[in-house]
């Protein structure tokens, strides 16, 4: 009746939830955001996302092979890094620079530390921080949303030759004859000219900005879906957003003309995407429940401090990278109270 009987050590049951399933779901959740970016910014955004994702996956494949880990593409984490990176870049960002960003994200942000599970910081943000320092002009060159002909022609800077500076897009934008286009994002306009874009536009995303950061509403829906499926710790985005809104509130009450409203703070820039999809990176965030809340608040507060008092209009990237850096410390502070101990 029995030839060989299997012997295993308990538990003999396993929940049907695996890393690749979680990662695939995150990719799925990013799809509507990516589609919106393409609809809003056209072919250039599509090429940008394809480039960052493709280069990220290739880099992952190469380094995993070199380090003897075998093929790790199947865990889908490199796809997430590539997609997220592309979504945080300006839609007309030169493709060769995007490729550099994606390579740096995986190589320096992840492979160097030992691959999936060992990265200290969010790899996509490491890549973006690198190009922010390396290509300061290109990464702050914004193009208008819903440009006519965006599905047939590229933004001129997209196809810049490797190692070349992008061609200025001002002439191209002027040729579009758009009323009221100043070349600045709502966030920069608020910071430097104290002009606040209508909240509804920022919420629905009918504004300029990085490829995938414009629609707070869409990002919120996709993030909620992931949290509902228990593939994202809701504590992190909620506390990031709470931290940001609560920090912005007193300043806005003091001087509503000078300082942005909490609503504008939440819906503008990259905060929403970062809160739901980057701060919540499981590997780089604290593992304890209390730690997740502290970490989220830290990021939210720091984002607004950088926005209001720093030299840059947006601060969420550095806030998260710093949050990642203190994450392990927060984890060790917030170890759970063991049953039976005081």
């Amino acid at each position, binding site marked *: 009746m029995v030839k060989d009987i299997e012997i*295993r050590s308990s538990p003999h049951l396993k929940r049907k939830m695996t890393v690749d399933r979680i990662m695939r779901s995150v990719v799925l959740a990013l799809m509507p955001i990516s589609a919106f970016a393409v609809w809003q910014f056209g072919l250039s955004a599509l090429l940008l996302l394809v480039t960052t994702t493709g280069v990220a996956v290739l880099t992952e494949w190469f380094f995993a092979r070199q380090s003897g880990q075998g093929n790790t593409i199947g865990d889908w984490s490199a796809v997430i890094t590539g997609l997220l990176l592309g979504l945080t870049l300006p839609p007309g960002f030169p493709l060769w620079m995007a490729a550099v960003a994606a390579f740096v994200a995986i190589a320096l942000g992840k492979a160097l530390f030992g691959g999936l599970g060992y990265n200290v910081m969010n790899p996509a943000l490491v890549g973006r921080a690198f190009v922010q320092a390396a290509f300061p002009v290109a990464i702050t060159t914004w193009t208008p949303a819903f440009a006519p002909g965006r599905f047939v022609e590229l933004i001129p800077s997209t196809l810049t030759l490797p190692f070349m500076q992008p061609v200025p897009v001002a002439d191209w934008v002027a040729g579009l004859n758009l009323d009221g286009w100043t070349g600045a994002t709502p966030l920069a306009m608020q910071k430097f000219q104290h002009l606040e874009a209508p909240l509804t536009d920022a919420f629905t995303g009918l504004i300029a900005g990085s490829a995938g950061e414009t629609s707070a509403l869409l990002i919120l829906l996709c993030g909620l879906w992931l949290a509902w499926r228990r593939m994202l710790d809701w504590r992190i985005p909620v506390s990031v957003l709470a931290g940001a809104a609560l920090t912005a509130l007193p300043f806005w009450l003091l001087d509503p003309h000078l300082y942005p409203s909490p609503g504008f703070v939440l819906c503008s820039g990259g905060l929403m995407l970062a809160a739901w999809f980057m701060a919540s990176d499981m590997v780089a965030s604290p593992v304890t429940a209390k730690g997740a809340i502290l970490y989220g608040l830290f990021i939210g507060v720091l984002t607004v401090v950088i926005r209001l008092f720093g030299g840059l209009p947006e601060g969420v990237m550095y806030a998260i990278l710093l949050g990642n850096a203190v994450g392990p410390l927060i984890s060790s502070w917030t170890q759970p109270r*063991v049953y039976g101990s005081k």
Partner: protein
Amino acid sequence: MADVLNLFQRPKTFGHGIHPVEHKELTAGQPIRRLPFAPELIIPLSQHKGRPAIPVVKVGQEVVRGEPIAQADGFVSVPMHAPATGVIRAIGLAPTAEGPKTPAIFLKVYHAASQQVLYGLDCEPERMNAKNLIHAVQDAGLVGLGGGAFPSHVKMKPPGRRIIETLVVNGCECEPYLTCDHRIMLEHTDALMRGIRIALRATRAERAIIGIEDNKPDALAHLRARLPAHLPITVEAVKTKYPQGAEKMLIKSLLGLEIPPGGLTADVGVAVYNVGTLAQMGDLLPKGRGLIERVVTVSGPLVERPGNFMVPIGTPLRFLLKQVGLHGAIGQVILGGPMMGMSVASLDVPVTKPVSGVLVMEREESSQKDLRVYPCIKCGECLNACPMSLNPSLLGELALVRDYATMAGQHHLDHCFECGCCAYVCPSNIPLTQYFRIAKSINRDRKG
């Protein structure tokens, strides 16, 4: 009206834990049935925590069903009784679920041996004092039938100055597949109440609380309706959540108390007894008999006729599985539940006193599980699952670098009771519980 009020009353529970698929519907509706005797029964001398029993029979001796065949060796030990009428064929080594072969009595059962128990002593538990009751419980060979196998009488007399105030009666049965305790509560209610009464008197406890998971509303209602009027016994619904039936968790749920690290339940004035143990106590003591059979759930995806059976102690698994029928290639045979049970290496292993279930599972390759192990992604699921509030993620990383001393010294490895929640939830398929088991055993070896 009472049902409406119940909606607002949240069942008591503990923090963390998991909700595995129960699979209890396979056997929950199956009444307890008797099985024929196997041609030969194998009765290991050590089926309990403590010192093994000492045989009092010789090879070739005839024994009748119920007769003592081995005596207790000291206080933390229990005697064994012949589960069937027959002749002692041998006293030698027999395979066990734990691995190494251990001394056992081999009993050749007579053809057409009667199920009637032919042995018993005069015993009137109603007239005995606590001390004599504790003796009688030991003489009955009773141990924790929920799987703990700790001699029942030892818990009645806690060491030092500890006193038992509350008797917790464990009817949770939180392990998936198992329904034997559920059936015992429904079918052996009178014996269970008698057992509680005996345990109350032997422990001198002031009250008894029966804790039952709220996935067994029929058992809850049945026991509530049958509570003896003049005894301090209550029935409490607790939330259906694994590992609700672990004594540390159940005490926390029912009383809000936590047992100190390395302590006993008696440290918080509690003794916990499984419903199956108390039902046997209530059945055996008035008749002056010993434990010779127990209810076992035989289930799992490969069992053709799953059910609950009154199985004589010592019945080899091979015989038991032949009675219920199997289909497909056997993967694993598990004694106990799928979360904490042990998989056996041989079907010659007998059913012993702590075996609450026999589960036949599919082969690994046909179970359609993704078994690839990924690195830990720090998702924190294991921290949210661990009922002891440990940090399995961190312990797992320390286990990988074999830093077993730090695991125990700084991160409370010894608190882990291997419930399996962390390994169950881990999306990276890291065998955390298995790592911790190895780490604990290595630490034990180093100490010893």
